[in-house]
Each structure stands twice: as C-alpha cells, then as structure tokens.
C-alpha cells in the first residue's frame, strides 16, 4: 500500500511536469535570450540584477522540476508550515491520537479489580461462578461480606463495592445500567446477573454441584457459514477514529485552499502574480503545495499512530486496521485532490471573508453526507446497498470506501475502480475549477455570481 502511494505521488508529479512543459514550450521559445537587444544603456540595467539567467544550483532543482508551479508550491509549503497555528494544530492532533491509543490500553492492561458485597448467604458454587464471571470480563472479583442491606447500600454509594448480591437472589447497584451501555462496569453487572440467575435455575432444577460446574463450563458451538466470513475486519474504534480524523483533515485542507485563494484575491497580490504566471499555474501550485503539506501532516499522524499502537501493544490495530488506516490516508489524498479544486474556485468567487459561510455551505453537504453514513456503517458494522453506492461516488467515496475496506467487504478491483472513478472526476473538476478561477479571480468589487463564471467558463 505504501509503495503504491509513493508510486502514485511520483506519477502525479511527472504527469504535471510533462503537462506544463508541453504547455509552456511554445511560450518559452524565446525565453533563453534574456538579454535585451539593442540600446547602449543596457549594461547599467543588467548590472543591477547581476545575473538574470536561469538558475543552475542544486537548491533550485525541485523548483525547476515543474517550473512556476514548483515555485508557487514551494512558497505555499514554506508559508503554511511556518505558521504557529499549523504547528500547534499538528501537535494537538498527535496528542488526540496518542490519547485515543494509549488510554484504552492503560485502562485494559490494568486488570480491573472490583469488590462485590454479599448480604446474607452465599453458596460456594455461586461464589465460584461469580469470580469466574468476573474473570470472563477481565475483572478480578473479590467478595466482601456486608452485615446488612443498609451497610451494603452505604458502600455502594461510596463506591467501596461495585454491586451487592442479596441472599444469592437479587442484585443491587448504585446506578441503573441501560442495555446499550458497553462500559466495563455494565459488562461485569450483566455477567454476574447471568451467573446468579443460572445458579437459581440450577437450584430449581435440582442439579448437583458437580453437574452445575459441568454446565457452567459450556461454550458456544462452532458456527460454520456457507459464505466465507470476512477474514479480517478492523476494530470498530479504529474505523471511527480514522473517520473522524479524515473528516477533520479533509475540511481543514479544503479550507486552507479556499483561504489561500481568497487571501491572494483580497490582498490584490494576485494581479501582480498573474502578470507573470498563468492562472492555471498559480492554482495548480497552490493546490500542489497545500497537498504536499497535507500529505506530510496526515502521513505523520498515521505513522505516529501505527508506531505508538505497536509500541504500547494496542488492540486498535488488529486485523484490517492498518490497511484501513493506510486506505484512509490514500483517500484523504484523493478526497483532497477532488475537493481542493472546488474550494479554490469558491475562494476565487468570494470577495470578503464574510461571504465564505454562504459559499462553503453547499460544499459541505456531500462531505457531511459521506461522513455521517460512514460513521453509521462503521459503528454498526453493516454496509447498506446505499452506502456501497456512495463508496463509488467521488464526493462521498473518501469516507465510504475506507470503511468498506475496514469491514472487509471490498475486493482489490472494486477498490481500484473507485480510485479510478475518483481520479477521473478530479480531472474533470480541475478543468472546470480552472475555468471558473480564471474568470473570477480578477473580478473585484462584489461577489461573482455563479451564472457569470459558468456561462463564460467554456469560452
């Protein structure tokens, strides 16, 4: 997966380079003769800049690789990563990821120890069943006799005991537990309630202690399915965390693009830039620069998560989780590539920051749709047909496809098909956005109407 990612990046850069080379070859035909022809005053003017020839130093290699686009991208990367907001934001994300990984590990490796109060008689068989029930939910249970119900209730309120078994029949807890509660306390309560009811049932059926012990050792029968089970599916929390991160980062990078374009338009620096760079170069450079920063940041987060999870032995990364994370990284890139053009075109149409709200709202609808349906699918572990369709639509695929991967319900060619669809849609979107951008970026004084840019975008 990583190798494919690197390959993809290299191919994208090379394609961009060839494209711009071809486009600018005609224009640069004369570019080599920098020196002015003629007049005697010349030497004074050229002396001012010393050298006006194209650079040859290795430092400029990257910038030269794709010409002006590289220059624009390099500036973008420099200015982006310089900001305090960026550094602080990255640290914040890393801290959140670390918390999501480390906290469950710390909580689960410290074997839960709970005291259980007993009021009245407690047969040895039940005691054994209760301790075994605790062990089944990774909790070491100790039994503490309580003189009476009042004392037990007091200890329940102070938290000295987790629950109390009264007369080997009923259970008293401090707080009601709902059926959907998945906390360790609730799990303990359910298994102990089961153990007590089984004990009562055995008693009622007149089963001996030896028979009861044999019954208690029963395990669920093996189930064989005709359809092959998904061999590896990711842990649910991993899917959810990954999805949330994907959502946050995608919106963040889209907003960067939008604000970057708007900054250039609002400060009017764009007119100076466009006097020497073509609009499509400026746009491509910005998108590329932010994309590189985005990939670096997201890659750092994923690498950090993988290494940290491995180091602390987290079970968040079992099964398909690493594959899902990497596919999320890939889809973050694809999602950015698709959405950045839309955001850039939107930014070029705005005039001031206060217009952003109304402009970005329509953009966020498909993102939120994809995000919410993916959240539902990831948390339920079930993918509806509708959701599977969303996994092939470029605006929602960045959320839906990685979740499908996590659920183990995707073959490699389905994955590739969705990627190709997304790439094709991205190319179409880029062309459209470049047309809108070119039309709108120099219009100032008021917000540019959609109708205007689209009616002329094709000319």
């Amino acid at each position, binding site marked *: 997966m990583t190798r494919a990612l690197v390959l993809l990046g290299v191919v994208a850069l090379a394609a961009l380079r060839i494209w711009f080379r071809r486009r600018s070859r005609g224009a640069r*035909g*004369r570019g080599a003769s920098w020196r002015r022809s003629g007049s005697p*005053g010349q030497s004074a*003017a050229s002396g001012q800049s010393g050298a006006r020839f194209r650079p040859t130093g290795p430092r400029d290699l990257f910038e030269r690789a794709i010409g002006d686009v590289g220059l624009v991208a390099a500036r973008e990367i420099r200015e982006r990563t310089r900001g305090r907001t960026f550094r602080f934001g990255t640290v914040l994300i890393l801290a959140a990821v670390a918390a999501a990984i480390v906290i469950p590990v710390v909580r689960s490796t410290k074997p839960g120890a709970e005291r259980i109060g007993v009021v009245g008689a407690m047969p040895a068989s039940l005691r054994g069943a209760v301790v075994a029930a605790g062990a089944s939910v990774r909790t070491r249970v100790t039994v503490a006799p309580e003189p009476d119900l009042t004392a037990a209730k007091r200890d329940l309120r102070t938290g000295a005991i987790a629950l109390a078994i009264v007369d080997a029949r009923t259970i008293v807890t401090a707080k009601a537990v709902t059926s959907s509660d998945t906390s360790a306390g609730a799990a303990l309560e359910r298994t102990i309630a089961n153990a007590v009811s089984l004990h009562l049932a055995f008693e009622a059926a007149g089963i001996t202690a030896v028979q009861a012990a044999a019954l208690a050792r029963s395990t669920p029968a093996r189930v064989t399915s005709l359809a092959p089970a998904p061999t590896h599916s990711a842990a649910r929390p991993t899917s959810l965390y990954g999805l949330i991160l994907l959502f946050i980062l995608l919106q963040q990078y889209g907003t960067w693009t939008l604000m970057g374009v708007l900054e250039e338009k609002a400060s009017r620096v764009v007119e*100076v830039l466009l006097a*020497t760079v073509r609009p499509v170069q400026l746009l491509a450079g910005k998108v590329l620069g932010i994309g590189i920063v985005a990939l670096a940041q997201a890659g750092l987060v994923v690498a950090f998560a993988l290494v940290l999870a491995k180091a602390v032995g987290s079970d968040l990364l079992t099964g398909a989780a690493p594959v899902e994370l990497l596919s999320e990284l890939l889809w973050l890139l694809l999602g950015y590539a698709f959405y950045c053009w839309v955001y850039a075109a939107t930014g070029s149409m705005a005039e001031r920051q206060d217009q952003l709200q109304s402009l970005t709202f329509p953009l966020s609808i498909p993102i939120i749709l994809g995000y919410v349906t993916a959240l539902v699918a990831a948390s339920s572990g079930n993918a509806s047909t509708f959701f599977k369709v969303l996994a092939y639509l470029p605006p929602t695929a960045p959320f839906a496809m990685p979740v499908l991967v996590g659920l183990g319900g995707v073959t490699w060619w389905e994955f590739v098909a969705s990627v190709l669809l997304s790439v094709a849609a991205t190319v179409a979107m880029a062309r459209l956005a470049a047309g809108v951008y070119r039309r709108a970026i*120099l219009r100032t004084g008021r917000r540019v109407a959609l109708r205007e840019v689209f009616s002329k975008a094709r000319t």
Partner: protein
Amino acid sequence: MGVSLLELTGLTRRFGSVVALDGLTFSVPAGEVVGFLGPNGAGKTTTMRAIFDLVDLDSGTVSWDGHPITAADRRRFGYMPEERGLYPSMLVGEQLEYLGKLHGMSAASAAAAAAQWLERLGVGERATSRVDALSHGNQQRVQLAAALVHSPEVLVLDEPLAGLDPTAIDAIGQVLVDQAAAGCCVLLSSHQLDLVEDLCEAVTIIDHGRLVASGRVDDLAASGRRRLVVRVEGDRTAAWASGRPGVTVSEVSGGAARLVLDDGVDSQDLLRAAMAAGSVTEFAFGRRRLSEVFREALA
C-alpha cells in the same frame, strides 16, 4: 536594429454595454518615460491590464519588439497595478525574492536584487518586516521594488505616485528616469499632471477608450494656440482682457493672467490694452502646460 517598441494596436474591450477600450492604438518606445493620461474611467487601467493579458480583449493586439507579445516577454516586464497588492503576512525581502524567482531569476540573484532595490528606495531596513506592518508610503515603495526586482525591459505603472509625499515622489521619479535612461520602456499613468510634465518625455492621452492626443511633451507644449502671461499691477481679475475678441483667459493665479490667443490676435494690441489697465510688470509668451494640453484635448 532600432529601439524596441511596445505597440498597442486596435485594443477593444466591452463590458456589457460599457465600452472600456474602443480601438485604442499607441506605442511606447524603449528609453523613454511615457505618461499615460486620461480622466477617470477613460480605460487606462484596462489598457495596462491588457498588456499583461489580464483582460480578455474583444479585439486588438499587443506586440513587443515587432512580434505579438508572449508569456516569456511578459516575464521581463514589471507591473505595478492600480490596486496595490502584496502578501500581507509575508516578509518584505522574501516576497520580493519570490517575485524575482517567478520572473526567472535564481534564488541568489533575486535575493541580492531585492536587497539592492529596497536600499535604493529607502526601505532597506524593512526587509525583515511583514508587509502589513509598513506605512502606506513604504508599502508603495515595496510595491515599486516588486515591479523592478527583475530589472524589467518594460515597466507598466498604474498611478505609481498617488498618495506619496514629495520626497518619495522625487525618489521614485528619479528611479523611473534612471530606468528609462538605461533603456527601459516606462509607461506610467497619473492624474498629477505637473509631475508627469516634469517626469515624462512623451504623453498619451485617452478618453472613452480612444486616443485623443499623443506626442512629446515639448512638441505638445509648443503646439496649439499661443499663451501669453500678463501681470498688471493691482489687477486681480484680468477684467481688461476678458471679452476681447480672440482672447480667452485660461486662468488667473497670483495676479498673473494666462491668456490663450487665437491666430489673428496681435499681441501688441494686447500690450497696449494691458498698459491702459495699469502698470504692466510681466508680459511674456509661455509654453502650453500639460494641464492645458489635457483639458484642450478632452474638450
């Protein structure tokens, strides 16, 4: 090979029903500072943008050095737009270096040229300031440096002198004259006609997107009807001259009347009339001022 020439031919641009440029044709030779004049809305900014392909012309061509202008040519042009623009949060020096590189310079020579121009324009110590921390006047200097950093062959400056104090105007004016002397082609628009008269060798005046006058400042000043400056002791209104056939009082300032004479008017008659009105302390033919050229061209 002759002097390079920036030629604009038949530029036409309509915005809806508004005609911004209407077949505008003129040229700017290298080695001269050319003033580009016209009332507000005459099409000056649209013309300058057209040189940089920033407007879609309905028709017309811009050529440089005898061939239709290319992106590579424009790379060697410098532009200062009417609405100033630099990245507000970028450092001044880095910004100029970036623009220099966009114009094809190496990083090292761009940095050197940026430092040199900032020094020359009197803002050398602000190279490490953010642009938005500079005063208006200093931002304008930096903006000019941005147009100059790559030693352009053509400088197109939209109102470069607007809103500057006299020292800044002198400094920038000197830079422009030096650039022209070094062979650069300088086109600047301005409403400050007296400054343009001092600075420019030639002017082009447009109105409603059409050329209305153009030529060397000296020729324009010498052409047209004769100007006579007459000062009569104690006379503040030049009442003695008004109403005389063939004589127009163009202005009275500081006690001196500027008279515009039709061809048949005999100046000796006027001198006698002035002497009859009082003691004549000044009586001289004057050059046509650029402001007069401008007003008469638009009339």
